[in-house]
Every structure is written in C-alpha cells, then in structure tokens.
C-alpha cells in the first residue's frame, strides 16, 4: 500500500518556495506541529461566536491566541496557511488584519514581498462583500471584541483603495453599501481629501483644472480599474453626488424612487427598501417580479419556493453554489441533471486539493436516520456526507457502500437518510476489496450494535491488517462536546463541516502523527493557492 503526499509542480513563481523553507529552529517539530494544528482548528471551524459550551469571549480569546502563536512562529507560514481551502472567512478576516498590522521580517522563506501583497489582495477580494466591508470598518474604528485593532498604515490604505476602486463590482456595491463604502474611502483618504475629491467629482470633467486632475489621479486612478469614468461616477454617487448619472444601477436607484419598475436592475434588498419607503402600497411580490433577473446567486436559491408561489421565473445556475448547499437544495426541490453535473464538477475541482493520494479507496457512507440532522440544519449532515463522498471518489478508484438510507433516482447520487446504523458489515464489505484506505463518513452514532464497528477494527488490527481508516464526521455533537468517535484510539475522527475542509482535516491528522513530514505537505497544499493580483 502506498500513500504519498501530493507534490504540486505548479507552485506560483512569486512564492520563494518550499525548497528554501525549513522548520523554525527555535521550536521542536512537535511544538511547531501543535501550534499549526491549533491554528488549523481555529481557522477551519471557529466563527468567533458563542457555542453550546463556550462564551463568545472565550471562543475569541482562544481563536486569537492560535492566530498569534502561528504568526510569531512563522509569519510566512501563517500567510500561506490562510489561503488553504476550508479556512473560514472569519479567520481570513483576522489574518489579513494581523498581516497588515505586523512587519515582514528579513528571513521570509516562502513568500517575497510581491507574493505577500498578491496573497493579501486575493484573501481580501475573496471575502464576501459584507465581511470585507466589516473588515475595513474594523480597521477604521477598531473592533477589540473581534481581535481587530485600528490600522491605517500605507499598506492598509492601499489595500482598501485597490480592493474597492479596482473591483468590477463597484457599481453594485455603490447602490448596496453606500454608507459603508463612503466610510471606508474616507478612512483611506482622510476627511479632507475625501471632501476635495467629492468637490472635484461634482464638476464637469472639462471644468477640472490640471491640479484637480492630478488629485483624482493620486486618489483614484492609480487604484482603479481601467474604466476611470465609471469609477469616478461610482465614487461621486457614494459621496452623495446625484447629478449627471449614466451608469444603469445608479440611475435606476434614483429613478426607482419615482417609478418602482425603473429599479428592476437593482438588488432585491435595495429595491425592497425603496418600495417600503417610497411605494408602501405596492405588494412585496412585485419587487420579486421586478428584481428576478438581478437576484444574487444566494437569493436565487433561497427565493425558489417563494418565486414558485408567486409564479415568478427565477433561474439559478447550480454552478454558483457550494456542493453542500446544492445537496440540501436537491433534497428539497429534487435532483436535476444540471445539479448533478455541477456537483460532479465541484467534486472534481475540490479533489485537486486533497493532500494525499491512494490508488484505491473504500468509502462507507452512513445514511441512517440520524444523518438527517437537527431541525435548524435539516439534512445538512447528509448533504455534507454526500459531497465528501463525491470528492473522495475523484481522488482514487473508489468503492462506495451506503449504510442505510434510501437512494433517490437511478444513479443513486442522492441518498435520503433513513433507518438504523450498522457500519460494521459495510466496513467488512470494503475490506474485502483490499483498498489502500477507507473513509467512513458518519455522525458517529452506531446502533447495530453500538461498538461493533470498533470491535471489527480491533480484530482487524489484531489480524495484522493496517489499512488506514479515517472517520470523517460532519456533525458537531453537542452532548459529545465535539465530534463523536466511532473507534477511539484506532480510527482518527476528523471533523469536516464542508468538503473544502477535508484537505485541512487530513493534514491535521498527518501533522499530529508526524509534524516534520506533515508541515511540508501542508505548505505544498497551500502554496499553489496563494496567487493573487499585485501592483
């Protein structure tokens, strides 16, 4: 049997690379491994919120301590790991602040300055708009409870301006987040410059003096995307200018106050806001009808039922959603060829980031009733299990066994959870095919009989069979204070709440077992993902 870490050959040219990197000499490999594992746990699971067991403050203290420890250990390693698939937006938000708030050392081994700038730009660009603007706001006023202190150094200002003014979504943001955008720009430019920029933008272009043009060039042009006029108009709009508007969303925003139908291109919530203030007599369904073509991808999925009831055609492209959401959606609305195709494409892409390679694997999917999950996250555990199954199937020649459940459709891609949990027989079924590794996706509740799975594994080891078995658990069991294990000591249980996090979970497991080999494997996984725009 062979298991080898994937060695990517496409490491970005701007990263100085793994060949020059070594474990920090001040700590032992075991200690370095512990720090990285702690960071990975925080970065892949923590949302900075209270849990059943810990207050928000306790959670955040622990989380920030994990960030700080890795930042102190190796700043480059910290930056690189932030780019890993599966790292939460919240962790990236904290990470960007930490990187902006600390100086690059002399001995950077993984990223040169340009590569780090690119990485920062990418991390920021990929944050959801709301979180991005929250980060910028926190950099402006500070947010100690989120571990974010005020920052207004040149790097920060440039990053804010590049991200906002260089975004192809600036026009959309201008109508959707006017106040926050104005605050972020004012923070980056300062109140005086902002006021000057506003005054200049209020003039006809031909009336601007050379000095005024130079001010705009310094404040806007060097950070802006190619279409300067568009950026000027958006910035003016954000700063309160309403004259000479030409861009469709901006003109729609103004026109919709008089005629709601003129705002059809506006985001649903913006149009809804205008309706409630300026057209309170118009029914909400009318807003959905008008905004249908301009709904965001998330809205397209969430309004499907409402749209069906209101007989409004809202098209959604399955490719725009993550695999878990698609499976949850398919459970509710039915599997279609398009959804199935999108799921397989996503699995294929996600499999590229899987850090280990096997020739053959077995996948045991627990599809028993408990995988339906709780009322507030209905079917999410099963959806996650199916998405993990699809991903794993693209990493090796795979045999899949579903324990329990009812397959829906001829291809059995969708499996509705039902019945009891007997995992031992499925495990033996897989062992007979002599796979190089076995992955068991289960919430850890076994009842035919409880403990039978562990008995089989114990006997298997006694027989001398060392086939690696991994338990992937998509459910955080409150009463188990973490994830529930199927076979403590013999089978590692990896918490995985989404397929993108599987690579981290596997590497975390490797790191615990062998930090000296696990860390380079982790960097190999992360480095190709660090590429970003730089200027």
């Amino acid at each position, binding site marked *: 049997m062979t298991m080898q870490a994937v060695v990517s050959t496409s490491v970005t040219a701007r990263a100085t690379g793994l060949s020059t990197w070594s474990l920090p000499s001040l700590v032992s490999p075991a200690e370095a491994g512990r720090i990285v594992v702690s960071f990975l746990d925080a970065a892949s699971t923590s949302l900075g919120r209270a849990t059943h067991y810990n207050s928000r403050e306790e959670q955040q203290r622990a989380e920030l301590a994990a960030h700080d420890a890795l930042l102190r250990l190796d700043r480059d390693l910290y930056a690189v790991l932030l780019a890993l698939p599966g790292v939460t937006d919240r962790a990236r938000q904290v990470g960007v602040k930490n990187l902006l708030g600390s100086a690059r050392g002399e001995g950077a081994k993984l990223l040169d300055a340009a590569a780090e700038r690119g990485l920062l730009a990418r991390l920021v660009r990929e944050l959801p708009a709301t979180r991005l603007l929250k980060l910028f706001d926190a950099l402006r006023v500070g947010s100690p409870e989120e571990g974010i202190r005020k920052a207004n150094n040149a790097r920060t200002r440039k990053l804010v301006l590049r991200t906002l003014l260089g975004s192809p979504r600036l026009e959309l943001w201008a109508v959707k987040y006017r106040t926050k955008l104005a605050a972020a720009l004012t923070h980056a430019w300062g109140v005086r410059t902002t006021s000057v920029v506003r005054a200049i933008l209020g003039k006809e272009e031909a009336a601007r003096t050379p000095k005024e043009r130079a001010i705009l060039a310094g404040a806007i042009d060097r950070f802006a995307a190619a279409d300067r006029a568009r950026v000027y108009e958006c910035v003016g709009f954000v700063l309160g200018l309403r004259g000479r508007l030409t861009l469709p969303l901006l003109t729609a925003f103004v026109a919709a106050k008089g005629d709601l139908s003129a705002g059809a291109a506006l985001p649903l919530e913006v149009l809804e806001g205008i309706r409630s203030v300026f057209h309170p007599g118009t029914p909400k369904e009318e807003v959905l009808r008008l905004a249908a073509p301009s709904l965001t991808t998330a809205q397209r999925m969430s309004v499907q039922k409402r749209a069906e009831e209101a007989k409004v055609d809202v098209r959604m492209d399955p490719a725009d959603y993550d695999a878990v959401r698609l499976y949850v959606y398919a459970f509710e609305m039915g599997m279609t060829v398009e959804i199935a195709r999108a799921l397989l494409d996503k699995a294929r892409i996600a499999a590229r980031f899987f850090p280990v390679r096997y020739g053959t694997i077995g996948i045991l999917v627990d599809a*028993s*009733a*408990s995988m339906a999950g709780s009322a507030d996250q209905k079917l999410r555990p099963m959806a996650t299990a199916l998405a993990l199954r699809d991903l794993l199937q693209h990493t090796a020649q795979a045999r899949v066994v579903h324990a329990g459940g*009812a397959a829906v459709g001829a291809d059995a891609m969708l499996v509705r959870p*039902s*019945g*009891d*949990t*007997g995992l*031992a*027989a499925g495990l*033996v079924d897989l*062992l*007979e095919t002599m796979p190089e590794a076995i992955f068991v996706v289960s*919430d850890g*509740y*076994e*009842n*035919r*009989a*409880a403990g*039978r799975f562990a*008995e*089989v594994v114990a*006997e*298997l080891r*006694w*027989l001398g*069979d060392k086939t690696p078995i991994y338990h992937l658990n998509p459910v955080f*069991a*409150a*009463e188990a204070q973490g994830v529930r294990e199927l076979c403590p000591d013999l089978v590692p249980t990896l918490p995985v709440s989404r397929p993108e996090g599987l690579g981290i979970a596997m590497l975390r497991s490797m790191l615990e077992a062998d930090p000296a080999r696990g860390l380079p494997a982790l960097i190999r996984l992360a480095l190709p993902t660090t590429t970003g725009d730089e200027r």
Partner: protein
Amino acid sequence: MMSLTVDEILRGLGPGPAQSVGQMSVIPLLGEDEDTLAPPVVEVGTTGYGTVHLRNDGDRPVLVPPGAGWVVAQKAQDHAIGGGALLRPGESRQIDTAMCIQQSQGGLIARAKHELLILPAALRAKALSTRHVRDFRKLWEGIQAFNKRFGIEQHGGHLEFFTRTFAKQLDEFVAEFEVVPRQVGAIVLVGGEVAGIERAPSSAFWRAVWGPLIRVCYGSLAIQVARESKAPPVTRAPLQVETRSIAGLRAALVRAEEAERAATAASVRTISVTALTAAEEADETLGALALTTVASPRLSGQVVTEGRTVRFASLCAAA
C-alpha cells in the same frame, strides 16, 4: 374484554432488526399506518394544582398517552397524567386527577403546545394505579425515592432534578436509537429483559412519542441498570474471530448478529404469551375506540382497542 396476550397486542406487526446501545436494545415493530388517532400534539396548560387542561385543535381524535408529562421552562409547576386521554376533534378537557412533578415550584403552565415527556418507567405503574385519585401530591414520594436511586440527594418530588442531572445521557438515547421506515412500535429491552412494549396507530404518531419514550421513560431505566452492572446484557454478543482473515471476520460478525438475534428473541418469547388482565370497564371510550388499563405481574399499561383490534398500547415492566 377480560384479557389480552402480548401476541394479540402485537398482531399485524413484524419485527425489524434490533438496535442496541449499552444496556438498552430496541426491536422496531413495523406495520401499516391507520388514521384512527392523530399524534398527541395538543395544547396543554394547568388551571390549578393537579388540574391539567388539554385541547385538541385538530380535526381527528387524539390520544394523549398514559404517563404524559410536561416539563416547562416557565416558572410553573410541571405536571403529568397517570392514564391516557382520548380527545375528540376540537375537544377541550380538564383532568383534575393530574399530578405535580415539581414539588416546590409554584405557578401555572400557560396554555401552549408544550414538549411531551413520558414519566420514567419506574414511576409509570404508580402513576397509572393512582390515575383516578385526586391528589396532586401523589407522586412526590415516588419521585424522591426514584431520584435517590440515582444518587440525587436533593429533597422533594422534583423530576427535573433527574432530567437535569442526566440530560446528556438522555439526549444521547434520542440520537442513538433511530426510527426506521414503517415503524409503528417497539419492544424495549433493558439489561437483556423486556422493559416495555409500545404500539402506535401510525408512524407519524410513533415519531411523536418515540423521543419522549426513549429519552426519559426507558432511558432512565437504562441508566439505572448501567449504574448497577457494567457487564453487557445477554442480548449483546462479543465478536469472536475463529479464522484469521477478512472472511473469518465476516463470519464472526454474522455469528455475533445471529447470537444477538437469538438472545433477543428468547427474551421476547418469555413475554409473548403473557396474558394481561384488562380492567372490567374501559377508562374512556370515543366512538368505537376504548382506552383500557391492562396489567400482569410483569407488565402494566393501557391499550386502545377498536373491537378486538389493538390500535395503541403502552406497557411498562412493573417496577
């Protein structure tokens, strides 16, 4: 009706594969749905100590199962009823023989669809036998003795002392024992012996009562037995591999499952011909439905019959 055997009570149902965790095993009983009785989702409140107000706002008759209780988060005294209650569609009913299960708490339960609890198996017989007694204090002594058995030294008839102390284990039971398709009942074994027989009219009814049954009613019994004995029950066979190979492992798995099936079947056989004597008069009737109390030296509880056909049964081992 003078007597009923367990076989008769279970007529028309077939067993599914047993589920087993720790000291508890559950044999799901599978059957067809029939819509005589809607699941017990009713409005509940108290109008005085010992008086429970029930309202069925649905369009089908409802059975509130025997031993039903309501432990609420409000500052109000938790209550339970000893026997079941049949409610017509739209019917409101005051039951003034209910019992308080939270001794020193004052206050009345505001009317709402509160979460159902079924009294611990060890308290069911006492609650049932005093179902006609008008004394809201009647279970306090029993609850205090019950709590003491679990090492709970706090004074008073407070069932919530137990549910709070063992909340984690009780929650686990709900997650561990899964409802299977077409399930309308179960035979519950604790420590290898039959502790309860449950039958519901439909799988929807079953889903509504299974959580309360497994969590507190039978879960309490499993905790008690686990505290007394660490040895696995006779219904749990160890895996014994004779041939050192994967095929040998599979054979051992099959043997263990067969041994467990046989041990479970043997336990069930000991009660299948048990005759339960029925009370001469039904506790309640609703059209052709009759709610009757039945008892034997080993089991007691209530059944709902329609002619000779059993629609519902909830029988607990006598404590």
